[in-house]
């Protein structure tokens, strides 16, 4: 044992001497960047949690694979207490960045973050960093993609009735739905948009029945947000009614009827955070994903043949929003 320690010390001394002799520009292999995420639903929910998971996979690919960027996650953390315990555990284990992906985790984070001043935390969707130097906040301007989806839906609707299935009238969902309504109204004010908040993020059965209700009320285009909409998308496909997605790309679930999805590309924000952390800033800043910075992308379903003029309209709407010529009036 003693010999081994001697040997190790010797090697270390050599290493230091040698590295000191080397050209100063030689990059020291960067330490692996480690991220942990806590998410309310499953990583394959085709919605909010999946958008973060997919983004982390893309960041990992861009940063050079698992050797340079490692991430771990806890999914299905709908109990806030459990999530808080997981956040604390990850911080204790020395992760560089701990992401609390759900606005319900905010107050837990506010308590935990001061105990780990060396660790960077991020939470969303919100703009509030609680004034703490090691908390980042992030959110999505979901009304922008909502607006584009609304414009598209309005051009496709023959019955002049469009249905929306929402979870709870707050936050990201409300922004998206208000943006969608604005897009429809700007394109064709005669179209009636029926909105249904079902009061739950998980009740697939009620979401599905809400879609059926919209269809009975004459809707020929539907949209909706949060993870319980999979039930509604299924109904849309059965009834051959168009679907406009958000959060993740939902085309795989109903290839016949999904026209386009607003997809959150959180990696744009994550990369900014990571470079800030690497340069020593651990928080205190809030980020917004939008169409202009590429944090939101309108992804068309290749399985659905989109008329050329609709595609042009969508592109010009995206351009109008990013350049500021289109102003989305929210209530």
């Amino acid at each position, binding site marked *: 044992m003693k010999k081994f320690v001697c040997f190790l010390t010797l090697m270390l001394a050599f290493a230091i001497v040698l590295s000191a002799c080397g050209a100063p520009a030689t990059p020291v292999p960067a330490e692996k960047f480690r991220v942990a995420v806590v998410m309310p639903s499953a990583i394959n929910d085709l919605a909010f949690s999946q958008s973060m998971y997919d983004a982390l996979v893309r960041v990992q690919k861009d940063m050079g694979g698992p050797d340079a960027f490692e991430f771990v996650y806890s999914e299905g953390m709908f109990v806030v207490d459990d999530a808080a315990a997981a956040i604390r555990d990850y911080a204790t284990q020395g992760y560089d960045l701990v992401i609390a992906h759900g606005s319900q985790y905010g107050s837990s984070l506010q308590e935990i973050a001061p105990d780990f001043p060396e660790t960077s935390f991020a939470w969303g969707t919100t703009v509030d960093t609680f004034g703490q130097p090691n908390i980042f906040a992030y959110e999505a301007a979901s009304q922008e993609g909502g607006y584009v989806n609304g414009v598209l839906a309005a051009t496709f609707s023959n019955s002049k009735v469009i249905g929306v299935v929402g979870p709870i009238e707050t936050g990201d969902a409300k922004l998206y739905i208000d943006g969608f309504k604005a897009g429809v109204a700007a394109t064709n004010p005669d179209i009636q948009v029926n909105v249904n908040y*079902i009061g739950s993020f998980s009740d697939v059965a009620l979401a599905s029945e809400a879609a059926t209700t919209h269809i009975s009320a004459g809707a020929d285009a539907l949209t909706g947000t949060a993870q319980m909409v999979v039930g509604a998308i299924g109904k849309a496909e059965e009834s051959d009614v168009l679907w406009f997605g958000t959060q993740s790309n939902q085309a795989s679930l109903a290839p016949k009827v999904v026209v386009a999805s607003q997809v959150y590309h959180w990696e744009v924000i994550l990369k900014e955070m990571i470079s800030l952390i690497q340069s020593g800033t651990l928080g205190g800043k809030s980020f917004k994903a939008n169409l202009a910075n590429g944090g939101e992308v309108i992804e068309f379903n290749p399985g659905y043949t989109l008329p050329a003029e609709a595609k042009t309209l969508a592109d010009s709407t995206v351009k109008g929003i990013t350049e500021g010529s289109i102003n989305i009036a929210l209530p």
Partner: protein
Amino acid sequence: MISDLLSVTVLVGILASGIRLATPYLYAAIGETFSQRSGVLNLGVEGQMLLGAFAAFYVAVTTGNLWLGVLMAMFVGALMGLAMAYVTVNLHAEQGISGIGFYLFGLGMSDLLFQKLLGTVETVRGFPEIYIPGLSDIPGIGEIFFSQNVLVYGAYLLVPIAWFILNKTTLGLKIRSVGENPDAADSLGVSVTRVRYFTIILGGTLSGIAGASLSIALLNVFQQNMTSGLGFIAVALVYFGAWRPVGVLGGALLFSMINSLQLWIQVLGINVKSEFAVMMPYVLTILVLVATVSRVRAPAALTKPFEREN
């Protein structure tokens, strides 16, 4: 705006939705009625439903055979029931706590299997609507009652069958006596253990079908925790229905109809805050419960483990 609610489209829509929404509650709550009438409270219904929903979905996706899916859901539900029966009847475990344990097991296990075997949310072609010749052509009535899928019809057929078994057969008499006075039943040669095993396994089987009715008949998708509390509402409906199949039917229909009414209220743009609309089914169900069934008595031996006195 309120007058919009009285149009034919809306009324038919509300009733047809209500009938569909009540389906999983009926299977689960009738099953629970059997086990509670024999003196066992099974709070694991939600977990049994989730595993049943997954089993049915997985089998339907991989084999394309929907009936095989239902069979698998029944089998998985029965297996969960068997485990529950062993824990509560043989080991005399506290029923509420062990039920919660089985719920959590079902929740976690169905999610794990989903992640490992499927990995992503997908759809399946579920049971189609069956249009009963002649009857389904009646305007309104046809759409409400005679244009549903086979598992919906099954749920409503189950009500008279359950009533008949509980009230008109020797088996039903045994179940009720075991739930009221297991000592007396035992002294007359009725095996309390065997009867309770039977009812708990039957309850599990029906909960399995309840799950299948969601995943391969009504919604045709599977998602983590897709029942989101339905199983617990089913347990509440048994109390609401005063441990009688017909009462359970009334409760399930009332709750589901008000739920579909609130969906329409929002769709029609009637000026009610969505939070209040969503609350309606729960509030009204509680009000009816308070007003009507305060005099009904639960099975006397409910939640009490049976131990033979020497």
